[in-house]
């Protein structure tokens, strides 16, 4: 099932405190705390990645972006309040799905003026069933992997064709199994309803697949690839 999101209120606090603050502890998947940690890390990363894709693919003028620091490297983040709000709210709603390991993919779809997708940045996420964190070095390792993904996004220009002007984007979440039923019952954010995505945004004709980066770590496996429409104009 696929969900589709638009507007929303609310504000998430990204917590980067996990990096370097974890004491020696072995936590398992059942430990809710741990699920939250992974979800937080992932949502922070997705926020940065989405902003970076918007910058690199020139969906929005570069003037709204400014350099911020994440994972000890400069990244471009947007200053536009509503854009930021939209992204944060979407990720806030995605977070519970990730916590329960129900989110299969988070997709950022870039559409042209006629709302046909031209590019789809797919973040495939999976978490190993039995997770354990043993030490701080794990998290700094994860940080390194995420840094590498950020770097790969920065150079994705080289493997992608230019987009037509006037593109927009949207965020989709693919969930596993019956997660959607729970979503319907519980409104995570008030007045931010989940809506099933349109077929045309989910599937793209004549798509070619361009893998960007894969990361594997003890707590998280993520794959980033781009589905690109062959004819963009």
């Amino acid at each position, binding site marked *: 099932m696929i969900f589709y999101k638009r*507007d929303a*209120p609310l504000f998430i606090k990204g917590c980067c405190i996990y990096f370097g603050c974890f004491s020696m502890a072995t936590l398992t998947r059942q430990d809710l705390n741990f699920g939250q940690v992974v979800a937080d890390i992932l949502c922070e990363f997705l926020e940065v990645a989405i902003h970076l894709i918007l910058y690199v693919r020139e969906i929005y003028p570069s*003037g709204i972006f400014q350099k*911020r620091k994440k994972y000890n490297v400069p990244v471009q983040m947007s200053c536009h*309040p*509503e854009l930021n709000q939209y992204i944060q709210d979407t990720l806030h709603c995605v977070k519970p799905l990730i916590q329960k390991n129900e989110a299969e993919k988070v997709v950022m779809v870039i559409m042209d003026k006629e709302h046909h997708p031209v590019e789809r940045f797919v973040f495939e996420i999976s978490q190993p069933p039995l997770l354990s964190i043993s030490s701080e070095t794990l998290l700094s390792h994860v940080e390194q992997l995420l840094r590498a993904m950020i*770097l790969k996004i920065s150079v994705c220009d*080289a493997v992608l064709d230019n987009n037509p002007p006037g593109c927009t984007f949207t965020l989709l979440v693919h969930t596993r199994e019956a997660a959607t039923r729970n979503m319907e019952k519980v409104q995570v954010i008030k*007045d931010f*309803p989940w809506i099933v995505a349109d077929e045309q945004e989910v599937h793209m004709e004549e798509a070619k697949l361009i893998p960007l980066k894969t990361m594997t770590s003890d707590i998280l496996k993520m794959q980033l690839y781009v589905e690109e429409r062959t004819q963009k104009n």
Partner: protein
Amino acid sequence: MDYLYLDNIDEFVNDQNKIVTYKWLSLTLGVHVNTAKQMLYHYLQQKRNEGSGTPLHATYLVSGKCVENGSKCHKVSVVREDKLNAVKAKMDVTISVHVYSVQRAELKDSSPLYNTDYDAVKENIKNCNKYSTIRCAAAVPMSSAEVQRAQEMALVPPAGKEISKTGLNENTSATPKPSAKQPAGIMGMFASKNASKSQESSKEVKTEQKDDSSLVETSKSKTASKANPMSNLFGKSAQKKADEKPNKSVKEETAASSTAPAIMEQSQTSPKSKIDIKDEQSKVSSALKVESKDTRNKTKRPEVVDSDDEKMESQQKKRRRIKKPQPDSSDDEVVPDSPPVPNVQTPSPKKQVKREPVSHQEVSITNNTLTEKGYVSESYSESEEEPEPNSQAKDSSSLKQSFGKREEEKKEKREKKTSTANKPTKQPSIMGFFQKK
């Protein structure tokens, strides 16, 4: 001569789509940095001569002497290939030019360059200058006690920071300026500006500064850090000297700059400033990289239509005018010949990237009532360009007005009923077919 390295570089650049900087190459292949530079140059020549395959982009490091504002300085900058000749021409004496990096993608900003080197340097941190020619006998690792002392000192505001000369070469970053200078710089900049508007804006800056100092506790650190990058703009241009970056980075770490939001907003809304606008690139929030220089480019900024917008926008970081982006002209380090240089970490010079001017966009948040709950989402209007004064008109005085707006804005955020309907124009509503109820 062993030419295997050409194949290596080819693999890195073309197959793996990596950015190959000379530093990364030297650490990866275990060669001296000068050799790495030669290798990159050789590779570039060969590929260009072949004229086949995918286009390659390169960045260069240029260093030379030039005169800025009457003072001689030594400038080091990383420039894109297309800007190379322009930068060289501007220097009186070009001391060195070498290839900084080679990559397939055309980089829009310098962050990936830093990112590339980060891990390589981190792994070799103890001997990262093994292959380099930069040596300093005084540069030895600090003992843990010294590290702790340094950390405590860094928390103290950097006003009047001691600048000590070190024997580092020209690649060190510029000196930090005390933060107190910044508001003065902006005032000075505005005072020196022609047209009455500048006086008006300087008054606004003052009032905003007062506001901001009182509102600073409410501002989130995020906004403060957001402000800092922009704040460089006017501070630098006013002083026409390098070296605010370290200052800013420290400020960001302390996460409190009452003037910064004002400066940022002013910078956003500044009218026809003929002044040189500093490069945005230099406002990296990362504490490591530090450069600030004058841009040599004059931007043509759109005139501020009415001062109301300025005041409002200065108060509300949420509402911003999307201005023409500052040209990322010179991401270079200007180190005055004589003044001492502080012991800052080794920076990495930034790249010059020019940005295209963008159309002016104004964003406002309007109150739209929600439709019913459930699957019908809230409807939002297509008209995003409502001028701000309409929705925000309150008290007359600018001070109260900004206060009032700030409160109202907070209330707006809290009210879940109202939806922030306005989206950036780039995202037209496809929910339009949902009925407005």
